[in-house]
């Protein structure tokens, strides 16, 4: 897998606090535009990241403002795009249990899982061997390129 990516250009460690979502979005949005994503693609990537971080803060760390979250951001090697990896040492959950709700069922909340799956070209949610969870998000400038294997 490593040969598919540039070095992670940026590693972040943040505390599990809602007020840090905006600065992290600003950083990734700027990187995304630099890596060739257009305005909406950049928006969709930062929304997926925001939803993942919100879940870690709210459900993973149960609102504890001193949990640690690690975020690494790197350019994709093949074509323009960005990868964001989010890791925590919070609650470990079975990804299959986190399905989110049916969108036809209009009610407040329960949108995050659906948004993450819809917004990016690659979405992975897995337990870490060290405990906690890892979310991988990838967004390409031209979604799902046929030339991904070359």
């Amino acid at each position, binding site marked *: 897998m490593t040969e598919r990516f540039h070095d992670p250009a940026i590693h972040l460690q943040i505390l599990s606090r*809602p*007020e840090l*979502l*905006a600065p992290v*979005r600003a950083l990734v949005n700027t990187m995304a535009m630099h890596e060739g994503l257009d*305005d*909406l693609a950049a*928006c*969709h990537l*930062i*929304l997926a990241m*925001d*939803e993942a971080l*919100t879940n870690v*803060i*709210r459900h993973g760390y149960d609102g504890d403002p001193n949990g640690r979250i690690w975020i690494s951001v790197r350019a994709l090697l093949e074509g323009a795009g960005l990868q964001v990896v989010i890791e925590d040492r919070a609650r470990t959950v079975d990804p299959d249990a986190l399905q989110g709700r049916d*969108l036809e069922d*209009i*009610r*407040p*909340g329960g*949108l*995050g899982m*659906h*948004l993450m799956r*819809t*917004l990016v070209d690659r979405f992975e949610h897995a337990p870490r061997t060290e405990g906690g969870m890892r979310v991988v998000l990838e967004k390409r400038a031209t979604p799902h390129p046929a030339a991904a294997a070359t």
Partner: protein
Amino acid sequence: MQPGPTLEIAIDTSNGATILAPKGDVDMARSPLMRKAITESLQKKPTALVLDLSGVPYMDSSGLATMVEALQNARKGQTPLKLCGLTVRVKSILEIARLNTVFTIFENREQALQG
């Protein structure tokens, strides 16, 4: 000492309708402030509640949830809830959440007040 999250929300009235115009990203840190402003406005039983989102460059699912809750509470009180001034990004987010058909959406404030 750390200043908390703030969300500037301009409140206007027009012929008995209330217009709320938040300015800034509506995310997990800020949506509770929008929720509070909406709840307080609905309690005053306006003829309509207009959310002017032209100053909102970004919204996450906590903002969407706040608006869905607002819609449900508005319906209970029989107050029409109208959105207007959606930025390109927020429009796209509403569409992806398939909420664009659930809300009544107008181009701008004037049309929302008339419609």
